[in-house]
């Protein structure tokens, strides 16, 4: 645990009120500002949609929250601990041990089988191969993937590959899953299947989810949405940011 942050000093939330927060976060890519004082607070177990037009900064905000990018200014706090001030090896360990990731195009390792892909986070965390594969296989049942354990990514449909990626994001039972357009490459039915499984699994496990999407039908599976516009979080009157 790090000392109390400026954010806590100002807003004084109860310790369990939020698991993840960005406060007044700004980040530019060269001369181009991507985030201009974005703030968001995510409660434990909450499933949050981050929406907004293309180029609004929603993916950049997700990357800052996940410790992939370091903001130029502002604070990112996870579980009471400043993320933005950590050195890269510590942020890397945080991402590996506490976070899960699901991206638009699955990004499975093509040389590995589906079950090896799912087991990857456990193997990177130091689990023994057999134990990791055993745990990975349990997710094939949960995510309607039975029989596909030995397939490689080229032998899976888009929906199957994305469910394998989902299993990989959830297998290490992370505190927070970050999903960037997880249904963006799928048709409506396959996308709904992925959202159904993602939200059911997250609710079963108590996992917090931060999900970037431009699709309102996907956002409708979440508990709450924020809208990023021109690098800032805008919220409807009466809504929390």
């Amino acid at each position, binding site marked *: 645990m790090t000392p109390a942050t400026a954010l806590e000093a100002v807003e004084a939330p109860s310790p369990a009120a939020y698991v993840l927060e960005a406060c007044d976060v700004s980040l530019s890519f060269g001369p181009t500002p991507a985030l201009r004082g974005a703030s968001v607070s995510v409660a434990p177990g909450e499933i949050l949609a981050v929406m907004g*037009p293309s180029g609004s900064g929603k993916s950049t905000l997700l990357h800052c929250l996940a410790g992939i990018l370091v903001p130029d200014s502002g604070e990112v706090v996870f579980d009471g601990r400043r993320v933005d001030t950590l050195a890269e090896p510590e942020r890397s360990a945080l991402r590996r041990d506490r976070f899960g990731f699901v991206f638009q195009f699955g990004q499975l390792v093509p040389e590995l089988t589906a079950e090896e892909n799912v087991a990857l986070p456990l193997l990177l965390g130091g689990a023994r191969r057999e134990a990791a594969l055993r745990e990975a296989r349990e997710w094939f049942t949960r995510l309607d993937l039975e029989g596909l354990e030995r397939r490689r990514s080229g032998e899976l449909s888009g929906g199957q590959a994305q469910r394998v990626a989902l299993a990989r994001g959830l297998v290490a039972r992370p505190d927070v899953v970050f999903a960037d357009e997880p249904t963006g490459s799928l048709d409506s039915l396959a996308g709904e299947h992925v959202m*159904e499984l993602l939200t059911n699994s997250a609710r079963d496990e108590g996992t917090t989810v931060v999900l970037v999407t431009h699709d*309102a*039908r996907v*956002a*409708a*599976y*979440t508990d709450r*949405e924020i*809208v990023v*516009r021109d690098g800032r979080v*805008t*919220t*409807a*009157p*009466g*809504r929390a940011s």
Partner: protein
Amino acid sequence: MTVPLALLGLLEREPSHGYDLKRDYDTFFGRGRPLPFGQVYATLGRLARDGKVIAETEPGAGPERKRYVITEEGVSDVETWLAEPVQPEPHLQTVLFVKVVLALMSGRSAEGYLDAQRAAHLDRMRELTGIKRTGTIADALLADHALFHVEADLRWIDLTTARLSALAEEVGA
């Protein structure tokens, strides 16, 4: 008006009593808005007057116990109605649009109004998604129909939000 034609369509399966028609209508099409008995019998009365159905009084039963049978003319009406595409409504003067223009003209925050509207639309989409997740296939398909319509409004809200400054110029705000 779809109620008379829906009742005719239900009668095409087999002759029925008013009570059974109401029950089937509520089951398949009511969705929380059951048809009042008064409306069922008034509609059947008009359909009988217009020759679309025949009301047969059942022997030994009270005068209100009637069994309705669809006529050939009634069948023909149902057939014509089913074959006719529903008029796509362009909604060129939506309440949303009027509110946005008036907000701009009066110097109020059109963006704030659109954000509130967007949140209300997403809340409705959450409710509909909940119905999809827990209901029958029929519930899910009806919820999908509603979802696509609400989503269309929401996309218009997003587009309008992105074009607010241009619209403000055009309406002289």
